[in-house]
């Protein structure tokens, strides 16, 4: 493991012990503070960045681009990042996975920077503002107000229910919401909204991407372990659908019940080392253990603790994701470097999703040479739109539900193993549509 030597010595208490807006769990804060105060290096996994929070991340800032003298003919395009602070969400099991305070926001900022580098040549200027709230109704009201003030492009990291409220509140305005945080299938299906685009992949896209690789490996027999939350069950459903689609077999399914208590007691491994093998005992023979744990609360207990020696995939071990901080494919190195310079940490999936959302607006603006919301939204819905986003092929939005088509990385915490769709999974129109619910199966009618 690479050791990040931590920031230069400084009065760390004010920064590292700062309450994390996403996670107000006292426990993780105590850990972070204690580490600094005892002077031990703060480790950061090469895979997921958990660098100390940067000092900025102040809500409601407007980023003014560098150019001071502005002429009247510069087109201004305003983008709003809306973040629902989810105080009840438990922090992930590993300290390495704790989201930084600017999770997603930093990706939007990079998108703004990239848009402005292009905008410089086209007399376009992109601005970002942020609203954050733990109360969904207040958040929706604040966003609506901002939209009326001239921020028609809303990059939202929120729960599915909140996203729906937001979409409905904006439905009579020339505005669009980009869902960058939720994989929820119903948002793309029965609850789809014409004014919502999804740069985050859906659960079925993630599950299909993983399943294609397991099929390619001929790891056909799965032991499925499912957590207790509705999200875990939804991911398990997507995995089961993928198994059926690609001719794989679930030989056993086990519900992993647990009481999420103190995230990390002093110790704990002694019992886990006993609990996981006994939970896995007596299963039919299987090639792989597939764990569905979206909250990142227990899946990491499984690798190296299974009853028989089998790889763990799904929410731990080998997992599907839109982005990974070690990806250097297709010009990704420069992209990662730009992000690192800007955010002083590694790029996480929500950052990537927010970047693609902001870049989508930038791409529409440069192609149409316009700042008019309706013109840009129409362009993003047209078949002329495509986006280059460091995935080796153009990304486009599905015309039937607003989902961004994209290759999915299949990765370990350290480095990618492959990229799906896998060779041989063919499609009539686009191989990317072998991932997720396809047009003939969709329940979304809002776009018709």
């Amino acid at each position, binding site marked *: 493991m690479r050791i990040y030597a931590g920031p230069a010595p400084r009065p760390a208490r004010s920064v590292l012990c700062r309450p994390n807006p996403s996670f107000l769990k006292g426990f993780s804060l105590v850990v972070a503070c204690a580490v600094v105060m005892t002077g031990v290096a703060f480790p950061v996994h090469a895979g997921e960045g958990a660098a100390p929070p940067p000092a900025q991340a102040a809500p409601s800032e407007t980023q003014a681009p560098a150019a001071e003298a502005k002429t009247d003919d510069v087109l201004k395009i305003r983008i709003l990042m809306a973040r629902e602070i989810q105080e009840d969400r438990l922090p992930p099991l590993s300290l390495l996975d704790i989201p930084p305070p600017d999770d997603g926001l930093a990706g939007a900022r990079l998108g703004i920077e*990239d848009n402005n*580098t*292009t905008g410089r*040549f*086209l007399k376009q200027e992109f601005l970002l503002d942020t609203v954050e709230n733990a109360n969904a109704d207040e958040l929706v009201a604040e966003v609506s107000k901002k939209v009326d003030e001239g921020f028609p492009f809303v990059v939202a990291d929120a729960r599915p229910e909140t996203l729906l409220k937001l979409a409905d509140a904006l439905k009579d305005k020339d505005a669009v919401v980009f869902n960058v945080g939720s994989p929820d299938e119903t948002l793309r299906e029965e609850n789809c909204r014409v004014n919502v685009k999804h740069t985050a992949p859906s659960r079925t896209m993630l599950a299909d991407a993983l399943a294609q690789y397991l099929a390619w490996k001929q790891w056909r027999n799965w032991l499925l372990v499912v957590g207790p939350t509705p999200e875990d069950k939804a991911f398990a459903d997507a995995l089961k659908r993928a198994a059926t689609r690609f001719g794989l077999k679930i030989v056993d399914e086990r519900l992993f019940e647990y009481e999420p208590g103190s995230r990390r007691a002093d110790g704990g491994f002694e019992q886990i080392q006993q609990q996981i093998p006994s939970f896995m005992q007596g299963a039919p023979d299987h090639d792989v253990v597939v764990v569905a744990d979206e909250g990142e609360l227990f899946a990491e207990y499984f690798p190296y603790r299974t009853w028989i020696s089998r790889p763990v995939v799904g929410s731990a071990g080998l997992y599907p994701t839109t982005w990974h901080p070690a990806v250097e494919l297709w*010009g990704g*190195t*420069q992209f990662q*470097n*730009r992000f690192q310079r800007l955010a002083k940490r590694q790029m996480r999936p929500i950052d990537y999703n927010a970047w693609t959302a902001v870049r989508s607006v930038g*791409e529409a603006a*440069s*192609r149409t040479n316009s700042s008019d919301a309706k013109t840009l939204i129409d362009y993003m819905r047209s078949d002329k739109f*495509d*986006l*280059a986003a460091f995935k*080796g*092929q*153009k990304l486009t939005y599905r015309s039937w539900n607003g989902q961004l088509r994209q290759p999915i990385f299949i990765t370990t915490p350290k480095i990618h193993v492959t990229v799906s769709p896998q060779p041989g999974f063919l499609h009539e129109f*686009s*191989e*990317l549509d072998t991932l997720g619910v396809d047009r003939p199966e969709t329940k979304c009618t809002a776009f018709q």
Partner: protein
Amino acid sequence: MKRQSTGLALALFAGVMLAFSASNAFAYRVFISNEKENTISVIDSETLELIHTIKTGNRPRGIILGNEGKWVIVCVSDDNKLQVFDTQTYELVKDLPSGPDPELPILHTSGNPLYVSNEDDNLVTVVDIFENRIITDIPVGVEPEGMGMSPDGKWLVNTSETTNMAHFIDTESLKVVDNVLVDSRPRVAEFTPDGKEVWVSAEIGGTVTVIATDSREVLAKINFEIQGITKDAIQPVGVRISSDGKKAFVALGPANRVAVVDVATREVERYLLVGQRVWNLGFTPDEKLLFTTNGTSNDVSVIDVASLKVTKSIRVGRYPWGVVAAPN
């Protein structure tokens, strides 16, 4: 003196013709940068065999000739500089400075200075190759990549991969004068020999945009269609136009084809099957052969330009990237 050398050349010529009477090309040295192996493979264009391997710095990519063909200049991207090797002895001559992550270099038609795109800092750097110093930097779009030089030396065209533009830079003032939007992720810019057009490939957009040099108008967009290959896999990168201005060759990346395009009509005449993920192209100086770098199959394909046939593939280093041929 001149007459003597001509006589000598004639004698040599006769000797070569005798020795290789069946051949239709002079022997050139073809230099291939291997991105993942940190080497340059040297191929003899006559025997089509690997004759030498030069050890380079880290991540060699864009590769050109300099100093009247005496030097081969290569960007070693991860070392943030360029390296100069002797084309005859293969010895390292010197390093040249660049900005961070240099990718593609091109020389002014007069032979100096050199312009290099630095992928990591949105700049094109202007370098004096004899004085080994940076003259200036020119700010361009995000991830500068392709570099094209007009035959009269007046225009430098740089493409930026994430800004999706061809930037027209006046080589006298070293300022960006105009910007032309092209399709997604532009890679290579190549002028027609008469200097009237610039052809810009767009890897993700899947097209080649033809731009008028004087008016900067987009004259045409060339699309590619190959039966049995999805649109997404057609990713144009390398573009080379024959010096008679008649034929353009476009490398199509993971489509594993090189398109042959009629320059006048801009129609695709045919597709030549080459190795995997073909990226860059290089003619021999007599333009009888065209070499293609095939990134994922670790080889180069050799195209016989007259017959438009792929005649051979030659194994080189890992992930071949760029190619340039020098007179022997």
